[in-house]
């Protein structure tokens, strides 16, 4: 059971202009990841441009099948989106730490901005029906996996910036209202966050006076993915930590923004 393996593309499904769902068949036995962990995925090619692997959090991952939801962001993901069935990728992982599971008396709130849902999806599933899920995106077609999320959630809150579906606001506005309306439960809430920096900072503002605990999955450019290159540093109150090894999940109060 190696942490470096090859997997064949079974399907590379276009979900919309910017998002694909990649379904992979591992060619050798793999170790199953915990929610929050990630893979470093290489194009399995001989060419050196692009050079580095890219980090992705699987929606699900079993010895039979790995599902990756990805947004086409730059060169690497663009090339990936053009890869056909049968192509073989090389993969490192699972890597990094995982979201700590909530205690029995915790009320988990999952808050995803945009493609941040990729990292929080498997957690939501594992928390089956326990979590309130807050999911915001810019517009309708960036809200993905809605049917599954509805199933996994105790309650699902949706927002888009253009109001094309759900409320027309930031997802943080909905979260704020929710927390206000249930402020007596503050010490029970446990937040799980993944999304763009502005969203994370807004949430930090909201929770900092309420003593709510939150875990956040951080993003940094990566090279090795295993703590060897010291490239993926994020500033914390305890000095620089490596997102790939000591993270990607950190207690939010540890991060120095």
């Amino acid at each position, binding site marked *: 059971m*190696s*942490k*470096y393996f090859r997997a064949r593309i079974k399907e590379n499904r276009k979900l919309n202009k910017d998002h694909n769902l990649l379904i992979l068949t591992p060619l050798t036995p793999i170790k199953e990841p915990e929610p929050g962990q990630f893979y470093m995925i*290489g194009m399995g090619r001989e060419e*050196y*441009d*692009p*050079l*580095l*692997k890219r980090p992705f959090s699987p929606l699900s991952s079993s010895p039979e099948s790995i599902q990756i939801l990805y947004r086409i962001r730059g060169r690497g993901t663009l090339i990936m989106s053009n890869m056909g069935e049968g192509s073989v990728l*090389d993969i*490192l992982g699972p890597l990094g730490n995982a979201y700590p599971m909530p205690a029995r008396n915790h009320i988990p709130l999952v808050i995803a901005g945009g493609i941040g849902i990729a990292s929080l999806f498997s957690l939501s599933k594992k928390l089956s029906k326990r979590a309130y899920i807050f999911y915001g995106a810019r517009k309708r077609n960036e809200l993905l996996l809605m049917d599954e999320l509805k199933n996994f959630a105790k309650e699902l809150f949706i927002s888009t910036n253009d109001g094309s579906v759900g409320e027309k606001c930031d997802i943080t506005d909905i979260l704020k209202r929710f927390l206000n309306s249930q402020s007596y439960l503050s010490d029970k809430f446990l937040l799980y966050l993944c999304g763009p920096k502005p969203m994370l900072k807004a949430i930090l503002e909201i929770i900092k006076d309420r003593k709510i605990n939150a875990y956040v999955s951080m993003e*940094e*450019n*990566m*090279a*090795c*993915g*295993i*703590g*060897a*290159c*010291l*490239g*993926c*540093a*994020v*500033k914390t109150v305890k*000095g*620089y930590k490596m997102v790939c090894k000591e993270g990607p999940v950190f207690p939010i109060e540890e991060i120095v923004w």
Partner: protein
Amino acid sequence: MSERVTLYASDILLMNLSVTIGKLKLKNPVMTASGTFGYGEEYSDFVDLNRLGAIVVKGLSLLPREGNPPPRIVETPAGMLNSIGLQNIGVENFIREKLPFLRKFDAPIIVNFFGDTIGEYEEVARKLNDVDSIHGLEMNISCPNKEASWKIFGTDPEVTFRVVQAVRKVTDLPLIAKLSPNVTDIAQMARVAEDAGADALSLINTLTGMAVDIKTRRPKLGKFTGGLSGPAIKPIALRMVWEVYKTVRIPVIGMGGIMNANDAIEFMLVGARAIAVGTANFINPLATIDILEGIETFMRENKITDIKELIGGLKCH
């Protein structure tokens, strides 16, 4: 059957991959490049460390260093820039926390180190000199000199001479001086380091570069500039190793963009006695072993029984 096994075994026996770097004997020429292989243990999930020619660990300083603000890494065409900022746990933590693990393996441990001042270099070298199971020292002189308004040590021949000589005086371990490629005349720097008492030279370290985000108009690296490594720099590295090989008598350890056995053999042909695998580890965590096996295959296919036949074997007529 038994005859076949015997033949195969003698085949192996007949193929000599060992090389010597000063008084240090390596069972094969495949080393790791400092800073790309952590303290060894990070890759032990993937690589049987026993098989490596040598393990060169991340550069150490006297005290722990925080390193640079992120982003520290950015991809470039066929390469990458890093500005780790020499983050490290410091020499004492290394000895206490990392060395015990490394010691368990049958691969020589070479410690890469640096300092802000010649005095710091000396002090680190002294501390390392007395430790059991450190087999060699590699001094990184591509770092800023506090006593000369942070000019890079390894870009000034006189300073290079002084810092290598100072370290030479405090250690009897095999001493490798790691040269900076950001110089006009690499052969001169090599000669100076040899004269100052280095037992071997390693090159190249990274070339200074930068990248800009045109949307934000900011440098893509938190510290603005960084070191370029990877396949992009291989042609420059090969040329420099060749120039140095033709200039000095001490062994040369070649590196810079080595991704596969082919690349490694190119370096050996231009004169590298050993080679180090750097950025390639990030692309393929098994790179060191793949390269070692690739060299063996090449030797077998070309009926080369001793790797020394390759070293400096370039034909130029």
